[in-house]
């Protein structure tokens, strides 16, 4: 069993619970691209932490890399989280509101 089949199998496992759309060549490659894009752009973005502290940057990159590798198929989970149901959208809206307010209130006073 080569690597591609492994990936297809993994995606099938995850999709089995959700929608019944067939796993095609295109959807597999899209999922793979999204996965790589997500991980790599987050890692590159983390390098910006060097402005705060270099040690923190190295630690953060390593931790995130390790976490991403262990929880590898991230994108199906992300897709499941960003669905169209009102409840989940609302949940993220309220979380975002809390984060924005907290960041502004505490971040500015203590930085």
């Amino acid at each position, binding site marked *: 069993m080569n690597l591609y089949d492994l990936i297809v199998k993994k995606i099938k496992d995850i999709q089995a619970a959700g929608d019944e759309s067939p796993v095609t060549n295109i959807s597999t490659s899209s999922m793979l691209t999204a996965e790589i894009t997500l991980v790599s752009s987050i890692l590159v973005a983390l390098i910006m932490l060097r402005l705060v502290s270099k040690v923190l940057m190295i630690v953060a990159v390593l931790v995130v890399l390790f976490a991403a590798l262990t929880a590898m198929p991230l994108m199906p989970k992300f897709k499941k989280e960003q*669905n*169209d*149901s*009102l*409840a989940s959208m*609302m*949940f993220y809206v*309220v979380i975002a509101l809390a984060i924005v307010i907290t960041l502004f209130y505490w971040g500015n006073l203590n930085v």
Partner: protein
Amino acid sequence: MIIDVQLASLFTAVALIVIGIFAAVFLDNLIKKVIGLAFIGDGVNLFLISMGYKAGGIVYIYLPGMAADWFAQNAAYPLPFALVLTSIVIGASTMAVMLGIIIVLYKKRGSISASKILGE
């Protein structure tokens, strides 16, 4: 009283906003969600009004015989009040559109439960 009127009404406004957000997020019935949203709007309007309030002040209507200086020092700040008038009307029209959509959706799907008709 221990707390003054302005502070108390600001707290009332915040309480209304919190109740409204709670209702909009956690209640399943669409009509109740919309009632909660109406409370958020009311709370924000009350917040704006309390900002213009002045303890021991007078209404911002300039009557003949008032000294201009005295009026300027005692009248409430009228700018937020002018804004709230607009805001109330906007809120009411938004409510009307939402309720209209809910009625149409009930005719189509036969339910006003958010988890049933606004799911995936």
